[in-house]
Structure formats: structure tokens, C-alpha cells
């Protein structure tokens, strides 16, 4: 690549921003007795290092599951174990069983931040760079700009380097998966994606598009010939990689079941805290959580999720294409986020990743979505005292997108991928020509609301009767935005690719 130095600079900018954000506070800093996600990750290092594998997921006198019990799949546990070995080498106090609980120090913070940094550097960032290099039909400069925007996406940076989590590992693996599958290295792709699922079960949000895309590929090759071979190979890869990850837990039936129970805590409730999804927003009017019995909640959420992702998945299976795959990833993940059971506010990152991937195709809408997604996590970020880095990185991201893609000039029907939709609509409503205008106005309204809400939340005290007023408002507004995006992405998937080939012929 002739512009390698520009790509290096882009990566360096991404890394600099990441590290500077990491100098800020983390979740639960100095807040005993429970602390936050930072302590959870440290605690897992303590548990995995000091206890035998068989006890990791079980409640015992040494492993109180009520106190940040391990509830992520085995790969996370192995990663914690690896970090624990390094921690042991530097300072054994950090992972001492029992006595290290709530350990906090500058040196330890530095260590924890470094582990995130290294994981990111090894997994997520190379995937982004490679993905951008593999993009077709755009100039080298656009590829670099695209990489810059993806690397500057504030949501992921703030959660990983501010709040403290290792999302870049699971998202990085998922991205490797997307990369592999789109470049026809199906086996490698599915292996990477299996690793992603085994790092964080939330990656299941992405599993259906992967499944449908690969299945579609097999169908295309003919189920009686090459397609069947591919299907068998894929199945073997998936099974083998799962077995490899779960090997220590397959010794006993009870082990496996216990891990699964920890991974999918169905008895925890429809949603936690304040999430920008349907159920939480709907609770403003009707407390579903209290009215409906537990199992009905599960069934309802399952049905809604299933129905909303069904069309896109069917479409993808019948007409598998890398482009359709990316859009289906967005819409499926968004459906899961909006309708499924037990959603966290951080799960929006699972939608943001595929949106980042379509940034170069629909820059205007993607930028908008990514802004909303960061905004939807505002209550969480405020709790972690990350206001300053949030505002700064969001502005930096917005500027980067606005300049790299000149997004404001790209709001025609064509560039919004709504051409064929409005053509079909015009058959019934001939005067329907103002769609781009509507979308521009919606964008303006949405941005203004977000800015105002941020200002209000930061400056005003909520009324005493409604202490959660602002965070509920934030969730509600974000949820409305997300619903709009769900509709938009489904429209694109259903209409745009149908006429994609015809348009090219005309051109």
C-alpha cells in the first residue's frame, strides 16, 4: 500500500486517544463495597488464578458468585488467567485470594489499562486496518479516512478505556470473522467468530447473520455438491473450536450446565438499569416488569426479536452477498438490542461495530447512528465521571466523519440508499420526493435534542420525586432514534439490493 505512512499515523492517533482516555477514572473507582466493572475484571483474575478450573463458575466459600461471579464464557476466563500470571509477576498482592478484594492503586490501574491496550492492539486494531484495506471500490485515501473514523468511534473507546471492559477483544474477533467470511476464507472467519462468541456470549447478536450468510453461500454452491462439503467443513470448524474452548468444562455434565446457567441468567429480569431499548422505554408508560409473569416476558421478547430480524435473515440466506451481510448484521444486532431479554446499555456496541463497517457506504446515517449510540450510554459515562473525555472524543469523531466523508453533502436519495424505496413508494404517492429533506430535518432535531439533553443532565439537578428523570429521557430519546434506524436499515436491506444490479446496468 503506497500510503502506509498515513495508515500508521491514523493508527497512532487512535492509540493516542485511547491511552489519554485511559488516564481518566474507571467504573466504581473508590466505591466500596461493590466497586464496578474494573473490580469485576480484577476479581476474575483473582478467581481464575487461585482456584482450579472446576470451581470457577461454582459458588463456594472462596468464590462468592454474588460478588462479581464469573458470568462470561471460558475464553474470558482464560484471558483473565493470562493477565493474572502477569499480575502475579509484577505484584502478587493484586490477585491475592480474598485479601485483594477492592484493590486499587495507581500502579494497578496502569497495569489494567495496559492489558486493555495490548488486547486492543493485538486484535481489534489490526482487524480494522485490514478491513479498511480490503474495502473495494474506494480510493486509498477514503480507506484511510474510514479507518480513522472507525478507530475514533467514541463509544468503544469510552467503555473499554474509561468504564473498563474488554469489548475490543470480542468485537475484534467478530470483525476478523466478518473479514474472513467476506473474503471467502469461510473457515477462518467462522473460527474467529466462534472465538468471539466464546469470549462474550453477547456476540450471539451477530450469530444469525453469520449463520444465514454461510448457509446462503452453501445453498448457492449447490447443496448436493460443493455446498455440502463446505457446510460439513464449517460445521466441523465450529464444533471443534467450541470443544476446544470448553474442554475443561466438558468433563462433567453439571459443569457445562452451570457455565450455561451463569452465561444466560434468565431469572435476572427483562432489562437492567436504564437501557435504550423498547422494554425500558415502554416501562415509562406501563411497568411490564411487574405486571407480566416472568416466563411471558421471555416469550414476548423472544417473539418480538424473532419477528423483527426474520425478514433480513431470510433475504440474506436467499441472496448472500458481503454487502447484504454487513447490513443484516446491523439490523439483527439492533433487533436484539431493542427487543431481546436482559439487555445492557453497553450492548449497543454490538450494533455499532457493524455500523462502523458500513460507514463508507452510508456515511451520513452511520455517523448519525454512532453519535446516538454514544449518547445512549451517557448516564453510564456520567456515573464514571467521564464527561470530559466523552464530549471531546465525540466531537473529534464527528469532525473526523464530517470532514472525511463530507457527510452533509451526501444526503440524496441515492447516497442514502433509498432510491429504489422511494421509487416504489412513488408508484402510490407520486408527490413523495422530499425524503432526503425529511431525513436531514430528523438529523437536526435528533442532534439538537441530544445536545440539549446532555446540557440539561450535566447542569441541572433532577427533581427529587423523579431522580432518574434525565436518564430515562435519554434512554427514551435514544430508543426512538434506534427504532427509526431499525426501520431504515430494514428498508435498505429489503429494497436496495433488489435493484442494485439494475442500477449498475443503467449507469
Amino acid at each position, binding site marked *: 500500500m503506497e500510503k502506509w505512512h498515513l495508515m500508521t*499515523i491514523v493508527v497512532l492517533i487512535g492509540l*493516542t486517544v485511547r*491511552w*489519554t482516555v485511559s488516564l481518566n477514572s474507571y467504573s466504581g473507582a473508590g466505591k466500596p463495597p461493590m466497586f464496578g466493572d474494573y473490580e469485576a475484571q480484577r476479581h476474575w483474575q483473582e478467581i481464575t488464578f487461585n482456584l482450579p478450573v472446576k470451581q470457577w463458575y461454582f459458588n463456594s466459600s472462596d468464590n462468592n458468585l454474588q460478588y462479581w461471579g464469573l458470568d462470561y464464557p471460558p475464553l474470558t476466563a482464560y484471558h483473565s488467567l493470562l493477565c493474572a500470571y502477569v499480575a502475579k509477576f509484577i505484584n502478587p498482592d493484586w490477585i491475592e485470594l480474598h485479601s485483594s478484594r477492592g484493590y486499587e492503586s495507581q500502579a494497578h490501574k*496502569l497495569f489494567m489499562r495496559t492489558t486493555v491496550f495490548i488486547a486492543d492492539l493485538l486484535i481489534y486494531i489490526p482487524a480494522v486496518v485490514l478491513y479498511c484495506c480490503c474495502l473495494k471500490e474506494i480510493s486509498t485515501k477514503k480507506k484511510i479516512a474510514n479507518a480513522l473514523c472507525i478507530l475514533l468511534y467514541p463509544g468503544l473507546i469510552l467503555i473499554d478505556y474509561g468504564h473498563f471492559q474488554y469489548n475490543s477483544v470480542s468485537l475484534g474477533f467478530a470483525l476478523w470473522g466478518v473479514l474472513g467470511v467476506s473474503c471467502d476464507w469461510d473457515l477462518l472467519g467462522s473460527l474467529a467468530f466462534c472465538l468471539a462468541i466464546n469470549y462474550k456470549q453477547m456476540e450471539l447478536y451477530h450469530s444469525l447473520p453469520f449463520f444465514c450468510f454461510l448457509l446462503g453461500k452453501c445453498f448457492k454452491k449447490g447443496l448436493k455438491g460443493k455446498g455440502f462439503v463446505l457446510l460439513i467443513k464449517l460445521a466441523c470448524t465450529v464444533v471443534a473450536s467450541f470443544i476446544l474452548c470448553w474442554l475443561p468444562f466438558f468433563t462433567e455434565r453439571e459443569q457445562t450446565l452451570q457455565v450455561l446457567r451463569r452465561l444466560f441468567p434468565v431469572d435476572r429480569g427483562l432489562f437492567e438499569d436504564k437501557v435504550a431499548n423498547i422494554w425500558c422505554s415502554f416501562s415509562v408508560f406501563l411497568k411490564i416488569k411487574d405486571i407480566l409473569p416472568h416466563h411471558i416476558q421471555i416469550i414476548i421478547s423472544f417473539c418480538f426479536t424473532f419477528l423483527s430480524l426474520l425478514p433480513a435473515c431470510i433475504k440474506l440466506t436467499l441472496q448472500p452477498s458481503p454487502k447484504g451481510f454487513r447490513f443484516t448484521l446491523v439490523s439483527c444486532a439492533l433487533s436484539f438490542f431493542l427487543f431481546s431479554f436482559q439487555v445492557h446499555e453497553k450492548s449497543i456496541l454490538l450494533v455499532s461495530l457493524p455500523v462502523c463497517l458500513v460507514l463508507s457506504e452510508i456515511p451520513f446515517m452511520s455517523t448519525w447512528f454512532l453519535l446516538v449510540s454514544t449518547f445512549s450510554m451517557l448516564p453510564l459515562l456520567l456515573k464514571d465521571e467521564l464527561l470530559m473525555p466523552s464530549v471531546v472524543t465525540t466531537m473529534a469523531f464527528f469532525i473526523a466523519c464530517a*470532514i472525511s466523508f463530507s457527510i452533509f453533502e451526501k444526503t440524496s436519495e441515492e447516497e442514502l440508499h433509498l432510491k429504489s424505496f422511494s421509487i416504489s413508494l412513488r408508484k402510490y404517492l407520486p408527490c413523495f420526493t422530499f425524503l432526503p429533506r425529511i431525513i436531514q430535518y430528523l438529523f437536526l432535531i435528533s442532534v439538537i435534542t441530544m445536545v440539549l439533553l446532555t446540557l440539561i443532565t450535566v447542569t441541572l439537578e433532577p427533581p427529587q420525586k423523579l431522580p432518574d428523570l434525565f436518564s430515562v429521557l435519554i434512554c427514551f430519546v435514544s430508543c426512538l432514534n434506534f427504532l427509526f434506524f431499525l426501520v431504515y436499515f430494514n428498508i435498505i436491506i429489503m429494497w436496495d439490493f433488489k435493484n442494485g444490479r439494475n442500477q449498475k446496468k443503467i449507469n
Partner: protein
Amino acid sequence: MAAPGVAAGGGNWFSALALGVTLLKCLLIPTYHSTDFEVHRNWLAITHSLPISQWYYEATSEWTLDYPPFFAWFEYALSHVAKYFDQEMLNIHNLNYSSSRTLLFQRFSVIFTDALFVYAVHECCKCIDGKKAGKELTEKPKFILSVLLLWNFGLLIVDHIHFQYNGFLFGLMLLSIARLFQKRHMEGALLFAVLLHFKHIYLYVAPAYGIYLLRSYCFTANKPDGSVRWNSFSFIRLISLGLIVFLVSALSLGPFLALNQLPQVLSRLFPFKRGLCHAYWAPNFWALYNALDKVLSVIGLELKLLDPNKIPKASMTSGLVQQFQHTVLPSVTPLATLICTLMAILPSVFCLWFKPQGPRGFLRCLILCALSSFLFGWHVHEKAILLAVLPMSLLSVGKAGDASIFLILTTTGHYSLFPLLFTAPELPIKILLMLLFTIYSISSLKTLFRKEKTLFNWMETFYLLGLAPLEIFCEFVFPFTSWKLKYPFIPLLLTSVYCAVGITYAWFRLYVSVLTDPPVGKTKKQ
């Protein structure tokens, strides 16, 4: 940095660059800050709560006011904003006070005053001739220059991590240079006079200003061979220049003259009691001199030529103490450094007088003045290298030879700033930012001058690449060796000696290029 480059031909690339770096500065707010933070807080307190008559006498804190009066007034103005942030920081007796609001205020005061720097860079970019302009925005000299100045690594870490107010001061300097380029000499002189009364370190480059204004402004014409035409001397111009300097000085020093405090002010401004070298040796000639002395004394001890009992104890911890006592070579006095500095400056000034080459020649002379005084000055701070690096950026986009000198000077000069930040959380930041700046500067200038021969010869390449193992040794290997306790000064010593070689080499090359350049009178006549 690359973002605007991609917006093919957008007119707002400059604001994007400026905004981008401003956001980066905001992200640097929670980083480590040095005692200079307390210095400036103390000055805020002094100027806010004491009458002018006591500004230069106050000594509750050890960080007494030792900048010229305009800077004191600047702090006075800031303090009137500061009181809305946190009244407590304005109390003289609140030593080492640093609440989160104080931190925010101080950091933001640097970021906001940098607006002047941004404006100055904008003006400087106008002075660059765009003859070689490539098709692509990222390959235009203007774009490269604005990145080199706005995203300058040294300025970022000295101002926004270490904490100082160099941004707007360099803004004043660049603006005055830009005005001279634009033939607005009076304005340039005024700005520089004001700058001198903000921070007197800029006296180092005053000879360049003085000679240039005298030669190329007060004398309005040249003989055909480029030498001075004595009868073209314009008295009015000289008097108006003098008047400007006088008025500015009167405004600044007048009140203290009236209070009969001028000697006290001057004694604060020029403290000659400090040692030859700063705590950490700035990478200049004296670092090489000290190192040579050290080597000789070790050899002397080995060969039993020296008596171990006579060797001063401090020399074992050299690099950490202020006073360095020479064992073999003669000790250096302030007068000696002054003479050396003058000797080093003189040829460049002569050149400016006898071979006037317009503003570019002035700029070269200014850089040589800055570099010479950096190399031979008394008690030089490593930060002073910025005085040469920033103006050199202007030259670098003009000629391949200058670009090559610039890259050597900047890379080594910036690397020599590394010891300023010695805390672990800042280690990745300084490495990342340094890589960012160095990779950008080298690759962009290489692209700009791709038609010329290569920018570096094998020796220079080897030297610059040597910085990487040096850094790895000093910060990653050395702390884990047993020498750490016995010879704690080795990393600092190595860094300053290694960088001193590069900076001296850059100075030498620049001097050669200035002295051997053909007089402009023959090629370009005004």
C-alpha cells in the same frame, strides 16, 4: 491529522487541524503536570493579591516571579478569570494548591491562549509560496507546514503535559516573523518588542531582528552587487523603530522604574547564580564538554594519573545535581559561555548584513542565533530547543536541504525532551505522540521533495534510527538492571550526549548552508 487530508480540497482543512489538536489538548488535561504548574499558580496569586510594588519582592514560595512585567500582567488578567473558578488558588500561602477546578482553569488557560498560536500559524502559511503545490491537499507545503506547527510534539508536551505558556508566546514570535515576511516591518518589530517583555529568553534571537531591520528596512536600497547603499539610509524608519521599542519598554518597565525597583526586577530576570547546566543537561555543547571531562577523569583514574581523593564527590551523580565540577577540563564561567555564544552568533549576523537575502535570510539567521545560544548558553533548559525547531519548520517546506536539517534537528530535539516526562502513565503518550510527529514529518517532507535526492545519507539515517534502541535501553532495559542504583544518571547522560551530537550536527550543517549560499544580489535582484 490525516482526516482533513482526505477531504479532497476542502477549504476548512485548517480549522479541522486546529480543532483536532485542540481536542487532543483537552484530552491531555488529566496528565501529569510539573512544578511549573505551581509556579504559575503562585504567580496568579502574587499578581492578584499584591500591589505592583511587591510583585518582584514577594518570596513566600520558592517560585518567585522571574518573567518580565508583561507576563506578570498576563497572569494578573488571568487571575480575574480564575477567581470565578476557585478563589483559593489566588491565595499566596496556599502552596501546592491544586483542586480539580484549579487544574481545569490552568489547563484551559493554556488551551485558550493557544488561539494566538493558531492564528500565527495561519498567517505563516500565507507566507509560503505555493509554487511546488502538488495536486493533492496533503502534499501542499501549506498543509504540511500547518501540521508541523500546530501538531508540534515539543509544544504539545511542554505546554499541555509539563505545563507552560509557550503556545501564545511562540504565537507572538511566529506572527512577528510572518509580518516581516509580509513586509509589515513596524508591526513585526512591535510584536517582537512585546514578546521580549513577556519572556526574556527571546533575547537570544534579538540580534537577528536588530540587524535585519537595520539592514533591510532602514536601508531602503542596495547596490547592484547586493552590498549596502549607505546614502539610502532612512532616519525616519530608524526613529520610528526606536520609538516602538522605547514605548513598549517604557510601558513594561516604566512602573518599576518609577518605583525605583528596576535593579530588583533585573536581578530576578537574570539569575546568574545557577549552574552551567540545568538539572538535566540540555543536549548542547556543554553536555559534550561535561561528558568528555567525565570520560577523561575515568581514564585518568584507571591509569592512576589522577588522585581519587581530589575528585569532587558530586561528579559521580552528575546529571542530577545543579553544580557540575570539572575534574580534568577547565571549569566554565558565565563569561566564557557568553563569549562562546557571541562568537557563534557573529558569523550568521555578518551574513545577514553582507548577504541580505530577504526574510528567508533573516529566518535562517534567527534560527542560527537560537541554536547557537542553545548550544553555548549558560544554564540552558532543554525546552529552549523549541526556539529553533518552530521557526525551522517554516524553512523546512521550502528547500530539500533545509528539510533534511529540520528533520535531524526536530527529531533529536524532541527526543531530548523525553526526560521531562518521567511518569509511567505518560510514557505511552510521549512515545505515541513522538512517533506520530516524526513519522508524519519525515514521510510528508519526503513526499514533498521526492524529486530531489534522498533527504538523509546513510550516516544520518543510522543516527536517527539509533534513537529507538536508546529509548528502549533507557526506559525499558536500564530500570531492570543492577546499575539503576549505582549509576542512576546514565539514561539522562546518554540521552543528552546522544542528542547533543545531532543538534550540533544540525547547527553545523545549517551554518555551512548559510555561509556557502550564493549572495542573493546576483541571482535575485530586488
